[in-house]
């Protein structure tokens, strides 16, 4: 019996086995009825409560979801990133609204469509394959994370750089797909490119710098090695740039360099690299040429391009270039090797006054020593290692010693006595030629003073390099030296070459005129090797022509040389100049020169250049010339 029923019977003092009287029965029924009613009420209440409560719960749940969703959407919409989810089948299942704002992608155009369609339509064709492969890889590998960079088309057709961070969240029930977060990297990429450009380019000309040239040369060598090609490196140095800088100032120098850069670049193919290494030094990399000869052809072409006049701020400027050519595989197998070899060739070109020189191992035998000498020259000047030797010059008619030519020598502690050919061209490529020339001038004039004091009247000749000839300060410097030594200007002969005059004829003439006005004697050295115009020669204030030794040496067995010497003597005399022959090595030649009317001679037959002490002894041993009694 149910405990409630049992209790009801007990409360009414009823017995389960005895039927109750009518009153008790009615009370019993009333209680049982209440019990049913209680149960009904309870069921009603319970059901209502369940219904309302579950409704409230689901409303609340929906509110929370809506709230979360709204917050989620607001976060995504406000983000500078675009979020995209694609499912296992490669369909785009979600795209945040920021896609429109940030990447200008229409979300409804993406939603539900295959990723492939998106990639084909919006991604740069060069990046599409790689991107699809990465996305497939992401899809195939649970938990995988990948960063992929690609370019997205902008509405205007240009490309933006985008970084995508992909995560495989297929097993995450909240996502069930690959989450791809896209970020516009254009500004950063642009900055990176700019920084790279700055790191690898020359600020003045915008050309690649040494670092980039080095990089590209290495690359070209690798490529050429693989395909059996020749890669050539041309090193180019402007011959007269320093004068421009010194005389016109750095502003004009910079403008000139910019124009040179433009002209070089304009002369080359796009695949070639034109770089500025610093100062007036440029380089051109030819990654693919058929042969070294082809590279030489390019050097020739470049040289011609540079030689055409430049106009800087209305001024016409002429510059020349010395170009060194070195090529892989013949001359080197690394960028450093090629640069070094091209450098050697360039110095050779400069020294030889050639527009270009192709590297030759023969150049190299002297190069390390020569380059070393250059570094030591300044020290040598200070240390007094440079000495001046004197070669006597005799008058043909009388046999009298009328003067000496001062010739500089380097008493090198390691290499012994070095001739001027070993270091003067080096000094000429640098500013050292000026102190060197000053040194020789001072030594020669001091010596001259000494001889005068000892009763010997000798003129002294000093060679002037191009740089010194064009040095506007030279006349004043010479005045100072002449005053200091109290030597009459007439006793000083300055020997200059035709080519150095022709470097800047107007300026040379101005300086020569000033020197002439002082009374200094001027001689054209190595006459006959240049191509000076006679008309111009006539206008020069010179007093002496020195016939080059190359003609004199073969005077007796080479008819054309004899013609040249005779013509020179005649020309000189017609212009009222003395004519001096150099390189006289035997008596027969001396006789021949005498018969041609040459005024003076110089050469080993007479005496080789010698130190001052030797010269004094030598002079003392000479018979007193006849002319002394004239």
């Amino acid at each position, binding site marked *: 019996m149910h405990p*409630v029923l049992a209790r009801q019977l007990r409360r009414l003092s009823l017995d389960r086995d005895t039927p109750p009287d009518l009153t008790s029965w009615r009370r019993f029924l009333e209680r049982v009825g209440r019990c049913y009613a209680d149960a009904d009420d*309870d069921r009603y209440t319970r059901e209502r*409560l369940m219904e309302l409560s579950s409704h409230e719960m689901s409303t609340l749940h929906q509110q929370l979801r809506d709230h979360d969703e709204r917050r989620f959407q607001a976060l995504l919409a406000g983000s500078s990133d675009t979020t995209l989810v694609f499912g296992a089948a490669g369909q785009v299942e979600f795209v945040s609204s920021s896609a429109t704002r940030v990447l200008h992608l229409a979300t409804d155009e993406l939603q539900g469509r295959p990723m492939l369609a998106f990639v084909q339509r919006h991604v740069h064709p060069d990046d599409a394959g790689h991107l699809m492969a990465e996305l497939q890889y992401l899809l195939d590998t649970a938990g995988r994370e990948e960063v992929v960079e690609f370019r997205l088309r902008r509405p205007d057709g240009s490309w933006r750089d985008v970084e995508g961070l992909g995560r495989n969240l297929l097993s995450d029930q909240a996502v069930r797909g690959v989450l791809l977060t896209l970020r516009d990297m254009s500004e950063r990429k642009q900055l990176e490119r700019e920084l790279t450009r700055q790191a690898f380019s020359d600020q003045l000309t915008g050309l690649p710098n040494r670092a980039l040239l080095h990089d590209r040369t290495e690359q070209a060598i690798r490529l050429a090695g693989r395909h059996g090609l020749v890669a050539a490196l041309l090193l180019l140095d402007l011959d007269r740039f320093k004068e421009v800088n010194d005389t016109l100032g750095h502003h004009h120098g910079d403008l000139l360099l910019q124009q040179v850069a433009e002209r070089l670049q304009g002369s080359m193919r796009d695949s070639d690299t034109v770089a500025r290494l610093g100062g007036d030094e440029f380089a051109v990399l030819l990654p693919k040429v058929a042969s070294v000869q082809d590279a030489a052809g390019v050097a020739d072409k470049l040289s011609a391009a540079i030689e055409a006049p430049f106009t800087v701020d209305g001024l016409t400027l002429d510059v020349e270039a010395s170009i060194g050519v070195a090529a892989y595989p013949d001359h080197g197998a690394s960028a450093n090797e090629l640069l070094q070899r091209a450098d050697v060739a360039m110095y050779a070109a400069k020294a030889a006054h050639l527009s270009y020189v192709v590297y030759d191992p023969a150049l190299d035998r002297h190069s390390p020593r020569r380059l070393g000498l250059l570094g030591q020259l300044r020290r040598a000047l200070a240390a007094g290692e440079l000495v001046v030797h004197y070669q006597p010059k005799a008058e043909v008619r009388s046999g009298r010693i009328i003067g000496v030519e001062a010739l500089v020598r380097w008493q090198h502690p390691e290499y012994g006595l070095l001739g001027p050919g070993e270091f003067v061209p080096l000094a000429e490529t640098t500013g050292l030629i000026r102190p060197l020339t000053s040194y020789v001038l001072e030594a020669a004039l001091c010596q001259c003073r000494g001889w005068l004091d000892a009763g010997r009247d000798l003129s002294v000749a000093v060679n002037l390099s191009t740089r010194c000839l064009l040095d506007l300060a030279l006349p004043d410097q010479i005045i100072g030296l002449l005053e200091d030594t109290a030597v009459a200007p007439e006793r000083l002969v300055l020997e200059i070459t035709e080519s150095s005059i022709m470097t800047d004829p107007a300026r040379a003439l101005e300086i020569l005129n000033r020197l002439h006005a002082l009374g200094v004697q001027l001689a054209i050295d190595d006459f006959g090797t240049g191509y000076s115009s006679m008309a111009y020669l006539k206008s020069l204030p010179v007093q002496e022509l020195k016939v080059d030794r190359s003609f004199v040496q073969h005077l007796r067995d080479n008819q054309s040389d004899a013609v040249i010497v005779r013509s020179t003597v005649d020309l000189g005399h017609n212009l009222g100049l003395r004519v001096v022959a150099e390189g006289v090595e035997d008596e027969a030649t001396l006789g021949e020169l005498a018969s041609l009317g040459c005024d003076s001679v110089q050469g080993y037959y007479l005496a080789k250049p010698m130190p001052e002490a030797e010269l004094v002894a030598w002079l003392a041993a000479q018979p007193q010339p006849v002319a002394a009694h004239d």
Partner: protein
Amino acid sequence: MDVRLLEWEPSAGWSASLPVELDGPSTMVLAFGSPTREVAAARLAELAAALPLSQLAGCSTAGEILDRRVADGGMSVAVARFAHTALRRADAAVAAPTDSRRAGRDVAGALVGPGLRAVLVLSDGLRVNGTELLNGVKEVLPVEVVVTGGLAGDGDRFAATWVVRQGETTAGVVSAVGLYGDRIQVGHGSRGGWDSFGVERQVTRSDGNVLYELDGEPALALYKRYLGDRAAGLPATALLFPLALCADDAGPGLVRTVLAVDEAEQSMTFAGDVPQGGRVQLMRANFDRLVEGAATAGRLAYRGQDTGDGCLAVAISCVGRRLVLGERTEEEVEAVLDSLPPASSLVGFYSYGEISPSAKGGCDLHNQTMTLTTLVEV
């Protein structure tokens, strides 16, 4: 301790002759009844005449408990003569709920003194804010004094309650009996057995024990929606869904039961405070859990050795429980008795609020609980 239980029924009168032999200053007479006020006054007069020296206390009910039975319209009486325990009675008037705290202070102040072990409080069930009443009591009494009791009931009518004062049935009164001495052992236990359900709601507007709005919606409308057809039975049917005050840093979780509704203001008055800004949850009953709760209250209230004489147990259970349990109400009374020693005597009533010590010390107003106090002299 000598205990007699008596019952008065309209149809049968007193179940036994009144135990005049137990009369004395250490005799406590507890009378809980729900006949008309005049009938009740007549019965109380009979008790006072038979037991003139005894301390008579009692109140109106929403059902009387005696032994295993629950009845309506009669009176349940326990007469207990203590051998080693002194008694003192005090009362205070409460004209309005705002007087509650002062009344608490007054009765406690009248009883506080050396040897005070326990206080049984019986209060008007409609005019008193139980929370404030007990705040007043706690201000005066040391925490080790056990305070139990309840708020008088008025069936499911919520119209008028009374408390015995000077032998009279008086409205707007708080009455208390103090028990003194070191031989009296007082046990207590209080359990609900209700389950919270549904969403948590915020009390968006309340004033003390008057609740206006939950989550911005009139609380009465919410209750009516939940009650459906049974809204016709308001305010009694609101007892089906007591309000759980969610536990937070400010206090423990408590249960609040409805005392009245105001259709004009769409407000509901609860037996204790419903703080504005707090979070609440509706509760619902489960027969078995209510009965199990009552058994647990019994076990908690009597944890000592069985002396063989049993104990006097005063059961004060909430009218809300009765409303839910209906014909099965006696099951919870039986469950209480079954958890007490066999010779124990059980008297009590269905109330509008229960008073029992709280876990954190002092006492609290509880609702929807079975609250049991056991008295044993050793």
